[in-house]
């Protein structure tokens, strides 16, 4: 088996795992009270936003990029 075939198989396996996890989480959401899954989703969303806010001062302003030749339309 070539390296590229190995990489492709690994990619396919990872993708199948991700899809299985998504289906399982959807089943959990369907079958549990909103408060239960809501708390878990809120924890993830709020912590990601806190992290992004912590770093937002370091982000360049959008206007810096607007006229960049590196950007497509």
């Amino acid at each position: 088996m070539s390296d590229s075939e190995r990489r492709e198989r690994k990619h396919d396996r990872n993708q199948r795992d991700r899809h299985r996890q998504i289906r399982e989480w959807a089943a959990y959401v369907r079958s549990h009270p909103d408060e239960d899954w809501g708390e878990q989703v809120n924890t993830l969303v709020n912590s990601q936003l806190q992290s992004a806010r912590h770093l937002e001062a370091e982000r360049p302003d959008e206007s810096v990029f607007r006229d960049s030749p590196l950007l497509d339309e």
Partner: protein
Amino acid sequence: MEFTEEGVVIDKPPSDLDRLILDVSAVLDSLDIEHAVVSCYVAVLFGRSRATEDIDVITERFGEETATALATELRNAGYWGSAMPLSDLHETLRDDLPVRIAEDGHRVPNVELTFATDRDDRISLENAITVTLDGEPLRVGSLEFQIAYKLDMGAQKDYEDALYLHEVAGSNLNRTALEQYVTELGVENEYERLRET
């Protein structure tokens, strides 16, 4: 999560992301501006555990007077234009560019407001459903169209959003409408793959 004739009821405390869109949506409602939340936040609202900082909102076109009132109400509610001043709101939207609205002084999270510009946007507006989150209403583009649209976008994260919405809504989806959107957007193969996943 309860699917009813009137829409969907989600009885969880709002996250910081939910709080932002509930507030902005209430301002839009107070000015009778028709709008619909679309794209990746819809999956997060329905419980997908993934990170996002932007909430896409499509609105009907409105004039300068309404835009001025909207800018004033947003400022009064503690929001600003994080990429350009709210005083440029109408000019920006009229040029079919997005206006980013965030809590005063911050850039994330933000609501990205755009005028409806094409048929896809109009479908989202015209077929929006009401999601009641913790007792507060939110207009959201139809799940059937969100799924087909996400399949059309093609990136892995979009496919996964479509898969999640398809799984979580399950038998509550209107199959006829979904298959019609799938055909219209030419994503029959992707839809078949989603059903087989």
